[in-house]
């Protein structure tokens, strides 16, 4: 069956899932969930983190086996038992983390996948098919480019192309735009729209309601493992209704009040940082951050933000320039001196650089206090004090899903972030460096993060907020600057910042 045969509506749905239950080790992820996808449609699957969106799509493609319920493809109820069987039935999934071999070229990846699906072909044949398909879909992709050298957007195109070449008629994309710039996201969504118009069925797992409005025919909304809105028409519907269904409540976002900033707490002059491969990541960056204010640094990911955070944290050296923390010279200071001066860091990847998943909550909370002597002298660690401190933090920050002895790795993203906030935003925090602090969190947890940052700043701290999420920046910051290719634009007050002006700065046109 080719896509062109399938454009007729009114046939059996491409994918019909009914009464799906799935639990992980006793914790239900899906409860009686359902999904119905038609050919020719782009169908959005919306919900907060942990709502079960990825899980139900993984059940559809037989990555997970459902505990109960049925999955019917093209009207046939044949059980699909492996992702390979799902693929041969026409179900292809583009995961958040691409399934490509970085060291291989695009053509080699395609040849590998085709071979694995029992359709071996030569490399030149694979390259020819990549070129043809790319031309057909109207995008550029060099079949002989090594995947690891490609940009994220190009890798994603390669992934989509690979799944299509494997014969997918039902395409599932798991939060495809999360890693893309606005322009790249638009291009991808246009591609997706086109694939559906050619007769394929596309399921688009997403957080972003504006993508639903612009590009989707139907929307299914999930909350807490259940389907709360099934295959609703998008045309003519009110997005706010969808939002309310997805999150249960809409947060009111308070605008940042004008502040009279205090003493400068973080002064950076002409800072330059290199990446591990020697290329320049941050170049001649200067800023001054005062007590009581949040300075937002907007910008597309990959413009030097993680390197700036690592350098300020004391994890990687500056090649030029100076950094002063709370009045003290700290350019080459080790982590401890920075932290003693009041530095607090909320890195973008908390499980990699901030929390230790295998250690209990109490010990994660004590990580920055033990070496300062907050829990007793070197040879005698006061574990009871550690536990009490953790109990207090768990209550104060409303950390759910575990007690003082629970390994931090078992917490959900939102609760893990609250744990990190409890540790970093203590009374000693004077300079807070927060990088995408609400990335991947649901609205409720995002709000908790934002409230905690505002609270800390009200109490006299200063916050450098680095985020790719413009809305987060606009909601929190008193002043805004844009980072592009390692350089920082002049900060402007939030009132003067328009989305257009910032967009232009991000794209490097201003």
């Amino acid at each position, binding site marked *: 069956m080719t896509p062109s045969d399938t454009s007729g509506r009114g046939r059996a749905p491409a994918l019909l899932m009914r009464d799906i239950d799935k639990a*992980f*080790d006793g*914790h239900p992820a899906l409860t009686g969930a359902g999904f119905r996808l038609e050919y020719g449609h782009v169908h959005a699957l919306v919900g907060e983190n942990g709502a079960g969106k990825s899980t139900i799509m993984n059940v559809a493609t037989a990555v997970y*086996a*459902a*505990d109960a*319920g*049925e*999955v019917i493809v093209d009207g046939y109820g044949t*059980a699909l*038992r492996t992702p390979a069987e799902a693929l041969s039935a026409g179900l292809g999934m583009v995961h958040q983390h691409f399934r490509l071999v970085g060291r291989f070229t695009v053509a080699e990846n395609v040849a590998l996948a085709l071979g694995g699906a029992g359709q071996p072909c030569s490399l030149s044949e694979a390259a020819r098919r990549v070129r043809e398909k790319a031309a057909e879909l109207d995008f550029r992709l060099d079949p002989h480019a090594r995947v690891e050298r490609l940009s994220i957007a190009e890798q994603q195109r390669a992934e989509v192309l690979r799944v299509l070449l494997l014969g997918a008629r039902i395409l599932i994309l798991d939060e495809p735009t999360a890693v893309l710039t606005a322009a790249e996201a638009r291009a991808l969504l246009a591609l997706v729209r086109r694939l559906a118009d050619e007769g394929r069925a596309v399921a688009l797992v997403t957080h972003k309601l504006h993508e639903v409005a612009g590009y989707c025919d139907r929307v299914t909304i999930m909350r807490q493992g259940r389907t709360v809105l099934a295959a609703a028409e998008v045309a003519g519907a009110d997005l706010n209704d969808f939002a309310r269904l997805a999150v249960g409540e809409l947060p009111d976002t308070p605008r940042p009040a004008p502040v009279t900033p205090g003493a400068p707490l973080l002064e950076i002059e002409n800072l330059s940082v290199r990446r591990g491969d020697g290329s320049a990541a941050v170049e001649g960056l200067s800023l001054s951050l005062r007590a009581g204010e949040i300075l937002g640094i907007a910008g597309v990911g990959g413009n030097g933000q993680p390197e700036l955070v690592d350098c300020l*944290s004391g*994890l990687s050296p500056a090649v030029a320039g100076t950094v002063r923390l709370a009045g003290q010279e700290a350019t080459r200071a080790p*982590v*401890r001196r920075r*932290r003693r001066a009041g530095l607090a*860091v909320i*890195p973008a990847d908390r499980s*990699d*650089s*901030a*929390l*230790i*998943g*295998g*250690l209990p909550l109490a*010990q994660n909370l*004590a*990580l*920055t206090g*033990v*070496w300062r002597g907050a829990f007793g002298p*070197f*040879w*005698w*660690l006061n574990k009871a004090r550690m536990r009490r401190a953790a109990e207090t933090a768990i209550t104060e920050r409303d950390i759910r899903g575990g007690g003082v002895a629970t390994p931090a790795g*078992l917490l959900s993203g939102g609760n893990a972030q609250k744990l990190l906030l409890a540790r970093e935003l203590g009374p000693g925090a004077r300079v807070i460096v927060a990088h995408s602090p609400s990335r991947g969190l649901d609205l409720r947890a995002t709000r908790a993060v934002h409230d905690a940052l505002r609270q800390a700043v009200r109490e006299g701290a200063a916050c450098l907020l680095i985020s790719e999420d413009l809305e987060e920046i606009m909601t929190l910051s008193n002043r805004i600057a844009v980072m592009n290719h390692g350089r920082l634009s002049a900060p402007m007050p939030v009132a003067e910042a328009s989305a257009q002006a910032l967009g232009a700065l991000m794209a490097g046109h201003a």
Partner: protein
Amino acid sequence: MPEAPLLIRRQRVPGWLSALCYAGGLILGLAIAAGLLMALGVPGPSLWDEFIVETFLTSDGLSQTLTAMIPLALVGLGSALAMRVGFWNIGISGQLWMGAVAATWVSLHGIGPGALRLPLMLVLSCLAGAAWVGLPLLLRLKWNVSEVITTLMLGSIAFLWVQHLLFGAWRDTTTGFANSRSFAPEERLPLLGWGHLHAGIWIVLGVTLLGVLVMATSRVGFYARAVGLNPRAARAAGLPVLGTIAGLVLASGALCGLAGAVIVTGTEYRLSQTIGGDYLFSGIVIAFLARSQLLAVLVVAFVLGGFYTTGNVLKMFYGVSEAVVLLTQGIVLLTVLSAQLFSTYRIERRGNA
């Protein structure tokens, strides 16, 4: 076609399950080893007799097992300490050789007064072991050179150096054999009057107790856990990551060096080419089976000591090669590690939807 079962990772592993899998793996491994020995002609009943009764339940056997356990426990502790901070010390035998060389050097040159000779030999052996792991440690911390290769290679260098000494300057001139002359009485660890058991057992117990206390009550244990699990997060939180790794790895080398000194001063009374034996392999096996827990190291080393006691008997009476002891260790390590699969994952048959 039979369906492959599904492996589902457990969010939490209950303690009893972990213990059950461990015990199951151990029993299976021992059963396979027993079967192997029976196939080699050792009658079943005498296997029981040799393995359990003569090694653990008779006075002679027990003292022999405890004596064999002493160096095993020290290398096991050393291996476990390094493993805790993610450092692969594959040079255990090299550090052990260097410790033995240091102790012998003190003896041969008659350094220090007689009363302090033995303590000096032990302390110097610790320093020698630590120094021998110090170079790979430096290379790893400074330039990220894989310690698997460097420690292993330095192990060979240490052994070759021992041979150089024994066939050269240190050869026993009275007998002409390639070993050092034997130590003076004050250079030997005192016997406890129970078989060959010597005061090294107190060293082992003391070191273990000290290690357990330090790990449980001081910042060292706290830092070690954090650094072992996630060095980047530990560094970002301000923990002394390099210091922790260096401290534990140097302690690891020191204990392996001490093991060498304990062998030459406690049982051999001279440096010979045979003392290094299988300690590299056994040290790693012990640390793995004990899951890097220091008290458990003591237990595992005791059991493994029994293996060696049995191995000697089997070699003498049934003509079974000594290599069987290593083989048995290998089998048990394999089955215990494999059995962990059942505690890490839940296994389900595929439901036919």
